[in-house]
């Protein structure tokens, strides 16, 4: 892990309710809007991966169904508003939270 710095601001999420939008896609992974909001509310960890072209972000945390989730948000034109494009329950997320002392 690299040193921490205040890097991003998260003021909320963008949702697309069309059939091919992120709401339906996440539902396909058994992740609901309420789950994503819960992860944010419970103090998630944020990580970033830098590639040649763009940064990819991931939010890692627990939802209100006691699951460890990975949620991948992309930036939107509106400052602080992120659009979750995919996400799922993850063993890697669980291990990271465990190592970070985030699990009781």
């Amino acid at each position, binding site marked *: 892990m690299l040193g921490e710095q205040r*890097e991003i601001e998260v003021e909320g999420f963008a949702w697309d309710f069309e059939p091919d939008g992120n709401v339906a896609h996440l539902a396909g992974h058994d992740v609901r809007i309420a789950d994503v909001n819960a992860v944010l*509310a419970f103090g998630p960890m944020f990580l970033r991966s830098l590639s040649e072209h763009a940064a990819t972000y991931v939010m890692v945390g627990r939802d209100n169904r006691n699951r460890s989730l990975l949620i991948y948000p992309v930036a939107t034109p509106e400052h602080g508003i992120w659009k979750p494009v995919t996400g799922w329950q993850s063993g890697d997320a669980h291990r990271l939270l465990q190592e970070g002392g985030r699990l009781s």
Partner: protein
Amino acid sequence: MNRDAEKTIRDNLEARKGSGHELDGFTRIEAKVSSKPRAVFSLRIGADELEEIEAAAGAGGQNIGEFIREAALLRARLVTDKRSVIADFSSAYFTTRSALAHLAEVANLAGLPLVQEPDQKAVVRGPFTGSGVINHDLPVQDHRRRRGRT
């Protein structure tokens, strides 16, 4: 970001799903999270419907977003409150029914003239439930028979 770009990112990320390498290459960063997060979404609506909403919002000195948010919340809370009223009514009904059963039992034991005929029914009407008939099945004994025996 358009949908194709989103799909490319999504496909790349999902290719790692369950691999045990989902977080490879990621480093921890700090984030400032709003204490009161917002949700942003688009709404597909007919052009004529939007014009109608815009006119109504403008007449009340509101923008469209405020108007739709307020109208939708009013509707949502009406539904929530309706459920709450029904739950309260249901709880009160069963509490009252239980108390009446107890009262009737005591009254019957004492031979007091508190009787419910076996086929008696209570008609319940409410603003949300419409009307309906609830059958009472209170464990009431006929005190007249009891009196007759004593």
